[in-house]
């Protein structure tokens, strides 16, 4: 057995999920409050820091409220965990786990860095280097709907049930637009391995920023229009898939109290919360990987350098995380800017507009590729 492979995979799995994604989840819950406060001209949480007063000091050390997620977590754990009598217990307990697990599983195929040279061996910075990357993400993400549907059904009360029904129809509808909008991208790259897609972008310019390498040719610029359409459809469908504003109809509080997680409390509620944020982070990661060059540094094709040095790999990881963080900020910006859609508007938008647009885009890309490649 190749112990180096086993050990490096274990480090990658635990490192990426537990040291990157989960802290990102915690920090983005803080960032959400800070961003919303900034947009609404408030201050936001700025008090929680190192509690020196309980040790007898005069003042706490505030740390700009950076400890807030920790305090939130403590609150969730210490709250009473209530299981109402009328629920279907087994599924009621299963549902939170079913929302959290798929969200974390999808990170397996996203390349969070290029290479690291460890002891003279190149290690690819992706947990599972599959040849079916985007499809794997869609497959696992499509399982995420079970958690929400089961939560709604198992709660055995009206608002959660309506939330669950809404969520399943919404996610199924937007999965179509999501899948179709990624087809033109795959046609351009002719590749389903996300790692190789990023390497290609590193060499020849990002899909949406073809400014170096072969990206400067007119052929690539001719493809910018369909790629732009793909990007817009993909991003908006991702908002719907992750149940984020303006598409958070399954938990819309003006109509459904809290939607599918109305009956949940304490850590079980926190699991839904974490699952939503994890899905948002992975979604941002996928968008960055497909359209914005993943870990690649703009204008500097450095994949080869990363194979021989150790610091370039770290730099690439930092670059990827920066882009993801920027995209998460965009998610939040949209949430606190746009009002919520009505459910029928949401469905009409998905089926009548985005579905057709994504389909037409496939043909447009095929046409342009046919003209360009000859």
């Amino acid at each position: 057995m190749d112990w180096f492979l086993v050990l490096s995979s274990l480090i990658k799995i635990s490192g990426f999920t537990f040291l990157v994604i989960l802290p990102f989840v915690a920090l983005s819950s803080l960032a959400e409050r800070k961003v919303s406060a900034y947009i609404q001209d408030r201050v936001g949480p700025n008090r929680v820091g190192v509690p020196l007063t309980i040790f007898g000091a005069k003042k706490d050390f505030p740390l700009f409220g950076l400890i807030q997620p920790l305090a939130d977590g403590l609150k969730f754990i210490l709250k009473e965990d209530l299981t109402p009598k009328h629920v279907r217990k087994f599924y009621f307990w299963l549902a939170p786990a079913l929302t959290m697990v798929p969200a974390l599983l999808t990170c397996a195929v996203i390349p969070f860095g290029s290479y690291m040279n460890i002891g003279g061996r190149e290690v690819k910075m992706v947990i599972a280097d599959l040849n079916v990357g985007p499809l794997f993400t869609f497959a696992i993400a499509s399982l995420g709907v079970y958690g929400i549907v089961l939560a709604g059904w198992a709660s055995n009360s009206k608002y959660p049930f309506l939330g669950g029904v809404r969520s399943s129809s919404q996610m199924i509808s937007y999965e179509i637009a999501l899948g179709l909008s990624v087809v033109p991208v795959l046609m351009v790259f002719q590749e389903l391995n996300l790692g190789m897609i990023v390497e290609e972008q590193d060499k020849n310019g990002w899909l949406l920023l073809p400014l170096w390498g072969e990206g400067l040719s007119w052929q690539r610029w001719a493809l910018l229009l369909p790629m732009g359409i793909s990007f817009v459809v993909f991003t908006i469908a991702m908002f719907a898939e992750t149940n984020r504003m303006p598409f958070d109809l399954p938990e819309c509080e003006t109509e459904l109290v809290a939607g599918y997680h109305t009956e949940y409390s304490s850590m079980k509620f926190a699991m839904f919360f974490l699952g939503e944020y994890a899905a948002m982070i992975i979604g941002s990661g996928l968008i960055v990987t497909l359209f914005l060059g993943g870990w690649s540094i703009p204008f500097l094709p450095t994949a080869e350098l990363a194979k021989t040095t150790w610091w370039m790999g770290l730099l690439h990881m930092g670059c990827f995380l920066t882009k993801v963080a920027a995209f998460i900020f965009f998610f939040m910006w949209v949430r606190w800017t746009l009002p919520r859609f009505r459910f029928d508007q949401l469905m009409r938008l998905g089926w009548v507009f985005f579905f057709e647009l994504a389909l037409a885009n496939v043909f447009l890309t095929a046409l342009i590729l046919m003209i360009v490649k000859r």
Partner: protein
Amino acid sequence: MPQPLFYLFVAVMLGFGAAVVLLRNPVSSALSLVVSFAGLAALYVSLNAYFAGVLQVLVYAGAVMVLFLFIIMLMDIREEQRRRINKVAVVGGAALVVGFVVQLGGVLSGYEAGRKPLDRVPLQLSEAAAERRAAGNVSPGITADLERGTLPDTKLVGEALFTRYHLQLQMVGVLLLVATVGVIVISRREDRVVSGRGE
């Protein structure tokens, strides 16, 4: 795939497959089928067929079963649980299973290539790449993948569908379109009858 994993996934697949039939609660049955599909997908992956495995999850577990569950949740489950077991159906089903097993045994006993263990039949990727180059290198992406030592199963499926079977593919596409249009027509007609009654 190591043998213990194979048996684990077979056990998952068959165990939950049996649960689909045996459990009385329709939601439990539907979810057991999803887990069974996941085990099947793992078996596909163990055969290097990543594309088939992913599609099994994406299409069946992720889309078809969600719709099933959606419909089941709108039904009254208690009534379903009270329903008596239909003896004729049980006997008929058992007979069908026996017939199928006999047929499967007949087919497998006559299939000599199936006796070789899988790990003694290595994938000959570089040979396949050389063959493709000699035949004119129609799809360079596949050849490049083969030369790099990976099995481009997705691309191979795509190539087969869009070159050898393109007529059949289009026929299936038209069939699905007809079915979709049919569904819309039928649901529309129902609508008119109901509104007509109201007048």
